[in-house]
């Protein structure tokens, strides 16, 4: 099971740079890059912070991809 996210898509729609988003939620830009690439799954707290910063419900931001399930 894998968690997909729409962070990049929503961020671009809001005309936010990775740096600005990172600054808004107090993480490094590299962390935003890793989340967008799917290399890092954030904690629930960080996921909520992202959802709040992107003005998007958490369920729209992160979705469970069940296709990868064995």
């Amino acid at each position, binding site marked *: 099971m*894998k968690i997909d996210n729409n962070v990049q898509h929503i961020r671009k729609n809001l005309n936010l740079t990775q740096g600005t988003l990172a600054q808004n939620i107090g*993480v*490094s830009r*590299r*962390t935003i890059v890793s989340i967008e690439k*799917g*290399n890092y799954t*954030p*904690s629930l707290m960080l996921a909520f912070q992202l959802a709040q910063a992107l003005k998007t419900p958490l369920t729209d931001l992160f979705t469970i991809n069940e296709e990868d399930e064995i």
Partner: protein
Amino acid sequence: MKKIIFEQTGNMITIFILGFALIQSIVLSPQPTPSSSQIHFGYGWFLLAAWFLIFDVCKHFYQKCAKDGYNINDGEFSVRDEREQYVSYFAMKRTFQVMVYGLIFVIVASLFFSLSLAANVTTVSIFIIIMLSSLLVITFSTYLISWIIYERSNFT
């Protein structure tokens, strides 16, 4: 990543100078007798004190200017967010493993060296200082390399 490179480079330089100062003291000090012993401090210790001062100023300057989560009190364990906390944890785990194996090697190597024909108190002391200093440099390098590798790896 820059903060780890900065801190570990500084730590490695510290160990080089410390090792040099210790060895210099051993070489300069006269052999102890049953009634007296003396330690002569060479210029290596002044070099070490000067380096501590320079490094401390650099740390304050870095903390103030870089704003990448570097904290003087935390040093190489400074983290900016939860992902860096993971990276730091994994790097620390790898470093611990290397350090334990390294210490075992140093203990065994010291035993064999102290039993060798060329061994006297001075050479054994210098040998142990070189081995322990090298181990510390390897430990710092391991943490640095592990940090860089884990920083670029997949944590999903």
